[in-house]
């Protein structure tokens, strides 16, 4: 996690330990392992075949539910297709072992492969659509799946089903478990561990960023598309394992075992348990499957009713899920708000003073915009706008509402394509570059509402991206390392608004930007926080040599910190110069610009 060149620095800090799991996920994993272990081993060890079978199936479903929890909870993808992936794996395994006589182990591997292929297909729509569109597409896939099985009856023997003879079933290895039970137990624990690992890893954090705000992800150089495909891949793997394990457990498959209801069960289990938790699916599966099927009632019809009622009741009374609600209670009980603790000054590396002289930096602006033009539905948001930002300079961008400031920022970030005009980063033409490329090449950005994640710690919010190599780091790795212990123990939910602002800035600084676009960073800040922000900005430009574009309404702040200011209106530059050069006229123009003739009457 640290850049290679800093290995020497790291070794000096004796307490540095690579932490694989977050503290709270460790606890959840432990609880989950104990519960799953108990429900698998106890019935079998005490000779209760019925309950043993019940929980073996439940734990197979658990593997699939945990896989969906990764997909839903980490990557934010709504998929009702897991039942079909489960069925595809089970069917492929059964066909290989039952119809073609393949060894059961190899057959199961084939099943997992089938699941991966199926999952890959399902992930394609996720690249284009999200939310309920994705939900319906996956529902359609899950409904069609059994029908396709029946349609291709010659190959799948859908009418009669496939029987599979599995060697070793029933012959106890230890504690009453046969190899199937051991496998199920092992994979169930592995699934929980995998989720915990992902949750604690940078990949998991990147997935969550991409899920919560695709724009913030792009501005950090993360591709939401890759994240989704990765998530579908991982969850298909887990679901495929679950489906493959189904075959030796029952020795028989038929299309009727994989209806849409199965996909719905998995989804409910995740939501009812709580999406942001590791053990939530355990509560979900046991409550929605084991309880109605085996505990509460004998009549098949009432099983369905109970299951629906439980799901509905939980959504009404515990909208964040059972375990999710418990976590919230615990947080509220034990969490204390913390004193301000995100400060940037100690972090900025003293080494990185710009070697360029003033003249040189004026010659080679780090950001150059020429004649930018963009219209939305006939309105010129940008109308031939030009701008130069030098390295180490704070450049204020001001103007009334609708002057095009936000459009310009979005065009610079790469979220919006210019109709004409050029953008150059450090002399290199960047007009056609994607948002990700710009981010990776040193264009950083913050948003009007800080895109930080309440549920993660300060440290986790900061450590989302790799440190950029090839450019001198803006932040001192040693200082960051020192802050780690403090930052790990604080959840962002407890931070004040001003602190979250600073956090967003620290995060983007980790990618060593050459240019920093700040979108109304003072909005919502109290007066003392504003002056602190001003100091931070001076620090970034003077000490770290970053070219800062400051879009702001707080003119006093801008006039205080900016080296140069550009005043915009209606997509064009009105005035440009140093604060001293721009006199009262420019100020008044910004403050009291009347409405121009927007249209004739």
């Amino acid at each position, binding site marked *: 996690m640290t850049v290679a060149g800093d290995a020497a620095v790291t070794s000096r800090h004796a307490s540095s330990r690579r932490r694989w799991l977050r503290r709270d996920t460790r606890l959840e994993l432990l609880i989950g392992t104990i519960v799953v272990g108990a429900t698998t081993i106890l019935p079998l060890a005490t000779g209760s075949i019925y309950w043993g079978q019940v929980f073996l199936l439940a734990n197979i479903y658990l593997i699939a539910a945990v896989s969906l929890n990764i997909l839903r909870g980490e990557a934010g993808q709504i998929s009702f297709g897991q039942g079909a992936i489960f069925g595809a794996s089970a069917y492929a395994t059964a066909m290989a072992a039952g119809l073609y006589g393949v060894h059961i182990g190899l057959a199961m591997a084939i099943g997992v492969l089938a699941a991966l292929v199926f999952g890959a297909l399902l992930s394609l729509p996720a690249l284009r659509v999200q939310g309920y569109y994705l939900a319906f597409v996956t529902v359609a896939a899950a409904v069609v799946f059994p029908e396709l099985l029946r349609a291709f009856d010659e190959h799948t023997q859908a009418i009669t089903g496939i029987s599979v003879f599995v060697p070793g079933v029933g012959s106890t290895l230890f504690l009453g478990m046969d190899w199937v039970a051991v496998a199920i137990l092992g994979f169930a624990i592995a699934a929980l561990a995998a989720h915990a690992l992902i949750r604690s890893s940078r990949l998991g954090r990147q997935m969550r960023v991409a899920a919560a705000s695709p724009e913030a992800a792009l501005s950090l150089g993360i591709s939401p598309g890759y994240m989704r495909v990765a998530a579908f891949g991982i969850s298909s793997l887990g679901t495929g394992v679950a489906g493959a394990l189904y075959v030796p457990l029952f020795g028989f498959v038929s299309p009727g075992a994989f209806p849409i209801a199965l996909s719905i069960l998995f989804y409910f289990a995740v939501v009812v348990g709580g999406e942001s938790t590791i053990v939530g699916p355990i509560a979900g599966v046991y409550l929605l499957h084991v309880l109605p099927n085996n505990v509460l009632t004998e009549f098949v019809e009432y099983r369905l009713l109970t299951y629906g009622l439980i799901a509905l009741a939980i959504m009404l009374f515990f909208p964040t899920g059972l375990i999710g609600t418990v976590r919230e209670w615990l947080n509220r009980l034990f969490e204390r708000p913390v004193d301000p603790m995100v400060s940037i000054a100690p972090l900025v590396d003293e080494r990185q003073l710009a070697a360029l002289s003033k003249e040189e930096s004026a010659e080679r602006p780090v950001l150059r915009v020429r004649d930018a033009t963009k219209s939305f539905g006939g309105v010129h948001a940008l109308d031939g706008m030009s701008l130069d930002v030098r390295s180490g300079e704070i450049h204020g961008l001001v103007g009334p509402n609708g002057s095009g400031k936000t459009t310009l920022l979005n065009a610079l970030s790469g979220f919006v394509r210019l109709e004409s005009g050029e953008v150059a980063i450090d002399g290199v033409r960047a007009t056609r570059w994607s948002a990700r490329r710009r981010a990776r090449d040193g264009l950083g950005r913050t948003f009007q509402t800080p895109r930080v994640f309440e549920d993660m710690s300060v440290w986790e919010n900061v450590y989302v991206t790799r440190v950029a190599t090839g450019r001198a780091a803006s932040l001192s790795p040693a200082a960051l390392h020192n802050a780690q212990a403090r930052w790990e123990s604080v959840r962002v939910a407890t931070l004040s*608004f001003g602190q979250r602002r600073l956090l967003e800035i620290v995060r983007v600084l980790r990618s060593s930007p050459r240019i920093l676009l700040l979108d109304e960073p003072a909005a919502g800040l109290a007066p003392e926080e504003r002056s602190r922000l001003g100091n931070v900005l001076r620090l970034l430009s003077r000490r770290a040599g970053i070219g800062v574009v400051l879009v702001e309404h707080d003119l006093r702040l801008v006039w205080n910190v900016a080296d140069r200011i550009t005043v915009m209106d209606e997509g064009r530059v009105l005035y440009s110069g140093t604060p001293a050069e721009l006199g009262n006229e420019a100020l008044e123009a910004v403050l009291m610009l009347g409405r121009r003739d927007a249209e004739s009457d």
Partner: protein
Amino acid sequence: MLSLTDVHSGYGRASAVRGVDLDVAPGELVLIVGPNGTGKTTLLRTIAGFLKPSQGSIIFDGRSIVRASPEALARRGLRLILAGHRVFPELSVSDNLALAKLSLADRPSYAKRVETVLEMFPILSERLRQPARDLSGGQQQYLALAQAFVSNPRVLLCDEPSLGIASGLVRSILEFLRELASRGVAIVVVEQAVEAALEFADRVVVLRQGVIVAEGPPAEFDRDRLRDLFLGAGR
């Protein structure tokens, strides 16, 4: 009629309004000015029920309204006209006006009130059957004001009525608001085009970073003083 005491409000953890006291009497036109991003719109939206204040009290007609929803307030005669000449683009002008029935207490007076407002804005009666999206920005603002008028409000909150409107029309809009005030309506106008609006106000309130920094009759505010107040340099 409308009384705010120590109101704090904002979005999420950010506070945009930090302790505002304001009183508005029937027939008074209060003009709220200040630099952008300063909480003016947040203040109006808080009064109108779109936001709940985190602190403070808002009394309308003797009752606290901090928990009331915008629709409930509209029905009780407190109306907000949103910024940006927002009307219902696919509905005709007359259908837009008809929606005033939702908050008009005295239904039988509807026809008469429509007649009155169409005399004030003849351009609307010419385009009665046309969809609102075919109107110019200024005409749409007329329509929004007209619809509010028909619903016979007692308090009218107006968010940047001149936004996106040709400068020639701004005067007529402010004149209309002045006319309403003379009929006893309490009016609060947030406006960025300060110069145009000053002459129509009974009282000017300067808001900066969520607090009131100055208040008084329009005569006390000239360009220099306004500039200093906006920037936070003067008093």
